């Protein structure tokens, strides 16, 4: 049975740059296992057209993920998911940036009314989904 292609979503009114929204959404699918090595992604032109945004924005997102080792952009126009060699340990800068972003997100959800326990449960569920 062929697997159903995953969906990505961006918000044009979000303060987060569009290329980062695309890269984040794709990375989530890559880590979740919805996209596996050998899968082909839409071309830059196709994805830009589907989202109604410029080619450069999609190209920037793809380049970022290629730089992280997730994608191979060398096959002409084809964008292929590759078997990524996980780094031995995240860099100190990456951990600091992650901690900062997490604090902001937790603060935002507390402000929205989510309890600390609920936030912890959400985080645990997200981690379990990605490691299963």
């Amino acid at each position, binding site marked *: 049975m062929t697997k159903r*292609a995953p*969906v990505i979503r961006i918000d044009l009114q979000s303060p987060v740059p569009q290329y980062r929204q695309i890269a984040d959404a794709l990375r989530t699918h890559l880590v979740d296992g919805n996209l596996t090595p050998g899968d082909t992604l839409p071309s830059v032109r196709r*994805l830009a057209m589907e*989202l*109604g*945004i410029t080619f450069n924005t999609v190209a920037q997102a793809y380049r970022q993920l290629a730089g992280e080792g997730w994608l191979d952009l060398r096959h002409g126009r084809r964008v292929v998911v590759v078997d990524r060699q996980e780094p031995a340990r995240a860099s100190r800068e990456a951990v600091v940036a992650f901690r900062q972003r997490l604090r902001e997100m937790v603060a935002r959800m507390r402000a929205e009314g989510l309890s600390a326990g609920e936030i912890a449960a959400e985080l645990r569920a997200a981690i379990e989904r990605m490691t299963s």
Partner: protein
Amino acid sequence: MMIWIRLLPVMPQLFILAVLHALPLLPRRDHLFGLALAREVRYGPEGRRLLRRYHLHLLPWTVSMLLIACFAPLPRAAAWVGFSLLPIIAAYRGFSAGRAELRGLALPAPSTREARLHADSGLARRLPWFLLPLALLAATAVYLHFRWDEIPARFPIHWGQNGVPNAWSTRTPLGVFGPLLMGALLIVFIVAIDTVITWGSRRAAVHPVVRIILIAVGWLVGAAFSIAGLLPLRVAPTWATVALNGAFFVFLAVVFTRHFRRGVPAPEPGAEVTPDACWHRDLFYYDPEDPALWVQKRIGLGLTLNFGNRLAWIVVAAFLLFPVGIVVLARALRS
């Protein structure tokens, strides 16, 4: 023969009138007059009132066209096209009036965009559907080749309204195989349209009905030109052409009816979102920021070009030049 000639233009007229009456419900059943509306507005008294007003606005034109098509003396082709334009203009005016009243109630366009991460365009899966009509033309060509000696030196290829032949062709390769070549070129042109649409439009913008119609037109062309290709052997009955056209329009009617009976569709990923500011009179779309070459129409079913994309002008040129080429070929055949 007169009755068959009379029936030929009536069928497309009936179809056009049916589409014009369904226009406010296209392209999606959860829309009205091309606007996304809350369910209580779309199916409420206001929606029903505007829909009724639109149908009443179109009714005199519908009745007039049917009377003209059935009882008036057969007009020349140009006059016929002119008559056909009148209900289309009336429908556009009625549609614009309904849309203007509902615009204030339209739901705001979502700020989110979705895309399915699918690399396959599906074109390769559709191509075999176009090979069948091409094979039919090729089979007719082979049949003519093996019965070449039975073809008269001069044979009729067109008849007037009185049933008397008024155009002739001769037993030459172009004279005999020309109609088949023309049919093949038309099918190739339809495949080119399908390819350009697939290449240059968002997946959600292309309604399945559009694809079905393109394939059906390819089949109609293949069958009609195969029948025309048999004219040199005088084995092509007139009723076959009429029956073929009838079958085509019945098929289209079934496809449209099935589409409307399916009920309100769920929102699709990547549903077409085009900014209001980029539409001119709800007919012409110009957005240089949008990479799509084709976008979903706001009025009616199908696609329209994004004139902000430079390739759109090449497509327009191809659409204008191809019929000219076909006319030149047809003239070469008749001379």
